[in-house]
């Protein structure tokens, strides 16, 4: 199973400031610095990280990925997943307590609430990075799938995988056991949760050159950075 130590999830100060809209090179006010320290303290006390993975065969995942049949006709995951050496469904949550605290703070101490919200969002993202390392590590490989692998997390709602794909993913993975529930519009509760498939394989499989039609509307093009970080083969 994957271990999610808080120290690996805790975001860097710079990324929290950036998430809150501080322009690169600008200095945060001393009061914002104090808020960040308080938010990080709350994060360390209240986060209850829990994750779940389930290995998938290519056929099993193809059915999950098809979901309700609402994916974009051309999308990167349909090209990448058949080339994978290993596939794992994945879900992670920071738990109910920290979400409740964010909500409570927004009723009065909203500056602290906003900073804690950004810290928790980034921590959930970092959990994805921890899971990618786990899935890509040789220790996770078994049988014929050994080798220098790189794993990426792909999530419903991103990159042409329709968000309704959450339904099939939940039916297979059952993240309810770690306290994650899905609502009718495919959102997870607790809010600070993520889901997806960990696709591990030789670095080259992840190199997606094409720009898809939906990329034009994407507000979080982190995929381009991670693709360009793939080591050359």
């Amino acid at each position, binding site marked *: 199973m994957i271990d999610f130590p808080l120290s690996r999830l805790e975001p860097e100060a710079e990324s929290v*400031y950036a998430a*809150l*809209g*501080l*322009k690169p090179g*600008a200095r*945060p*006010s001393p*009061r*914002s610095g104090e*808020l960040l320290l308080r938010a990080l303290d709350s994060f360390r006390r209240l986060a209850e990280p829990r994750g779940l993975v389930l290995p998938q065969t290519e056929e099993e995942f193809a059915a999950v990925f098809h979901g309700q049949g609402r994916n974009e006709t051309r999308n990167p995951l349909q090209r990448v997943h058949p080339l994978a050496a290993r596939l794992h469904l994945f879900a992670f949550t920071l738990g109910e307590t920290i979400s409740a605290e964010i909500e409570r703070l*927004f009723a009065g*101490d*909203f*500056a602290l*609430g*906003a*900073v804690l*919200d950004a810290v928790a969002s980034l921590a959930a993202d970092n959990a994805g990075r921890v899971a990618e390392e786990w899935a890509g590590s040789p220790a996770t490989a078994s049988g014929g799938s050994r080798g220098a692998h790189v794993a990426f997390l792909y999530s419903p*709602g991103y990159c042409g995988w329709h*968000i*309704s794909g959450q339904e099939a993913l939940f039916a297979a993975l059952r993240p309810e056991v770690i306290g994650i529930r899905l*609502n*009718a*519009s*495919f*959102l997870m*509760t607790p*809010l600070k949760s993520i889901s997806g498939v960990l696709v591990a394989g030789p670095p080259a499989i992840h190199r997606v050159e094409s720009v898809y039609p939906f990329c034009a*509307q994407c*507000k979080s093009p982190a995929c381009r950075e991670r693709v360009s970080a793939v080591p050359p083969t």
Partner: protein
Amino acid sequence: MEILKQIARTIEEGDAAAVPRLVGEALAAESSAKAVLDGGLIAGMNAVGEKFRVHEIFLPDVLLAAKAMYAGLDVLKPLLERAGVASRGRVVIGSVQGDLHDIGKNLVGIMLKGAGFEVIDLGSDVSAVGFVAAARSHEARVIGMSALLTTTMPVMKEVVDLLKKENLGGRIKTIIGGAPVSRDYAEEIGADAYGYDCAQAVERVKELAAAS
């Protein structure tokens, strides 16, 4: 007046402990509650909003300022009510049905209050009927809707359509926002305005409230 300028400055500094004391001093010096509101609290928040717009300060500073402003408003509220001073108008806000994301909506609400509007926050997961019923019962001029998912955006159109059906379209204006929402989408569904961020939302709501 110097004391009003001092209140505005203290709001910019986000000093929530000092503002109520200064408001008390201004009232004792025979400023009216309305003068303290406009010349102190709202003036301070306007300056903060402008600095935010040009990226001189960032979100936490704005929120600290808003908190300081609210602390002053708590002192003034009973006096303003007694004097029959009307707010800038009522705005009903919420995240649409199916959507649990509410941070953006919360920020919009905080900024609207800071600009002198009375905000009725319906929370998240609000149905079209819920928005319209609340706007009607609170006699709101504007409904503000937030959505973070493409799957929940259609509820915004339901609200616009329901207002039209009930012949309220001219009286109650709509503004929409959230990550997947765009100006084009607002035009497509017939919403009256689109806010890219919370600062722009305030500007648009001011225009809508003035027009309604």
